[in-house]
């Protein structure tokens, strides 16, 4: 009897159990890899610059995702508060994505440009000094801690292996120039990562202190670009309907 065979062989039982419980998920997920409309065709989305990438890593390190989502759903109330709903294309270079579903704090998918750099610096250091009712913890060490970017090239190389188009060779660089334009392509070139990171931090002066590059510089540079890459004024307001 076959039942007997399964129940008396732990290995077979294990494999078949795993297949049975993953079937539901696989049926939902696998087609998305093949459906052409999953990731919208849209201009402007690019991988993170080295400074933004370090900022994103700090975002993950500090566990911001535990209270903040980065995913505006196509609902009226969310659009009114946060802006245009998030596109799949906007997180195509995210590994891992930061969509989330837990909102103790507000969604941050389009926080870029909403506040000034000094607001972010002040607010991350002492949230209640600006938003009295906030329950967000203080992050006073960000502005004091110098940014460690010694391994930035390794971080970019790791992402390159997952398919993010950071360039190592001249051919890859040329492809990026073609895909993203010369300015963005430069910021994606791994051998120049430290140089680009320092330049962006000094030009942006995100933490208000031009003398050093702090973790605050990196995190604010990341927050300030969130959701700003796609220019929605270039598209009809129902352009993205056809991708669903």
């Amino acid at each position, binding site marked *: 009897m076959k039942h007997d065979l399964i129940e008396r062989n732990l290995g077979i039982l294990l494999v078949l159990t795993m297949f049975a419980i993953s079937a539901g998920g696989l049926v939902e997920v696998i087609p998305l890899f093949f459906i*052409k409309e999953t990731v919208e065709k849209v201009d402007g989305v690019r991988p993170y610059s080295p400074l933004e990438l370090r900022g994103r890593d700090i975002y993950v390190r500090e566990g911001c995702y535990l209270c903040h989502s980065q995913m505006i759903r196509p609902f009226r109330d969310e659009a009114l508060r946060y802006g245009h709903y998030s596109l799949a294309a906007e997180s195509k270079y995210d590994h891992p994505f930061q969509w989330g579903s837990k909102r103790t704090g507000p969604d941050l998918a389009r926080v870029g440009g909403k506040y000034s750099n*000094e607001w972010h610096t002040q607010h991350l250091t002492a949230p209640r000094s600006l938003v009295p009712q906030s329950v967000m913890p203080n992050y006073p060490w960000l502005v004091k801690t110098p940014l460690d970017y010694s391994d930035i090239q390794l971080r970019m190389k790791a992402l390159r292996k997952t398919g993010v188009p950071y360039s190592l060779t001249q051919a890859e660089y040329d492809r990026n120039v073609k895909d993203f334009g010369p300015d963005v392509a430069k910021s994606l070139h791994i051998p120049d990562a430290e140089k680009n990171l320092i330049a962006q931090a000094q030009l942006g002066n995100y933490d208000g202190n031009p003398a050093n590059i702090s973790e605050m510089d990196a995190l604010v540079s990341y927050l300030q670009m969130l959701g700003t890459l796609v220019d929605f004024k270039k598209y*009809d307001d129902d352009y993205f309907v056809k991708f*669903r």
Partner: protein
Amino acid sequence: MSQENKNSVQTTGHVWDDDLQELTNPLPRWWIWGFYITFTFAVVYWLFYPAWPIGGSYTKGVPGFNSVTYTATTVDGKQVKKTTHWNMRSQFMVDMNELTALQKKYFDKVASMSYEDVSKDAELMQFVNSAGKTLFSDNCAPCHQAGGQGKIGFSPNLTDDNWMYGGTYDQIHTTIEGGRRGYMPPFSQVLNDEQITQLANYVLSLSSEPHDPVAAKAGDALFHGEGAACYYCHGPDGKGKIQLGSANLTDKIWLWANIPADKTQEDKVNDIKNVIYNGLAKGVMPNWNVRLKPEQIKLLTVYVHDSLGGGK
């Protein structure tokens, strides 16, 4: 089958340890029916909604069963009616269309009427106040605080009569639309400590705060001289210039130095010295034309001007 077997529970026939048996009770009838109903539901669902993947695409619901019609706005501002299969994003268009229709008569009025006429229209002002409060809470309150009272050292008070960049409707509109960027150069390289102390005393004298009159007199000369040239931005009378957003130094309203909170004359002098030493590279307000629609900016202008009590 014997009578005895009919009344006892059926087993699979497996027996372990002499008397341990596996029963084969039938499933409850309500459960079985629930099971069939979910199957039926699934089939109906497939007819109405996107469901089955096929190659690079998927079934979008049988045409005609559950289509969605909405009005889209094209890049060049044309309104187009479209019908498509049901999906989250087309349903979202319908929801937004409903909202637009509800608010249209008010926003059309706000957009077409002059600021003064809007502020005189009591019914319209009810809409301005409620929509304005929401927009203000979402976008402005993080810096200017919930009631628009601002925060010393960070953002100006919007409820008083003092307007760095001007308090008329047009000036407030320009500020919201394009944002602002405050700047004062640092004087640490230009002036020595004694000179900065003299200037600080002069600045305090302008608003009748406690100060050292002798130092203030020397500061007066520096203020109007070409070395520091403070008058260039703050005006010869120290009242500031709206075109530059430079502070009025003659009133009792302070933004970058918390003079009212300082107990001693020495603290007041030091606070002002600090500003003159380091200058100000803050007071940045983002431009809201990228985030808000023109009619929303106009509505916020009226809200800030009329409802927060500014604009004098």
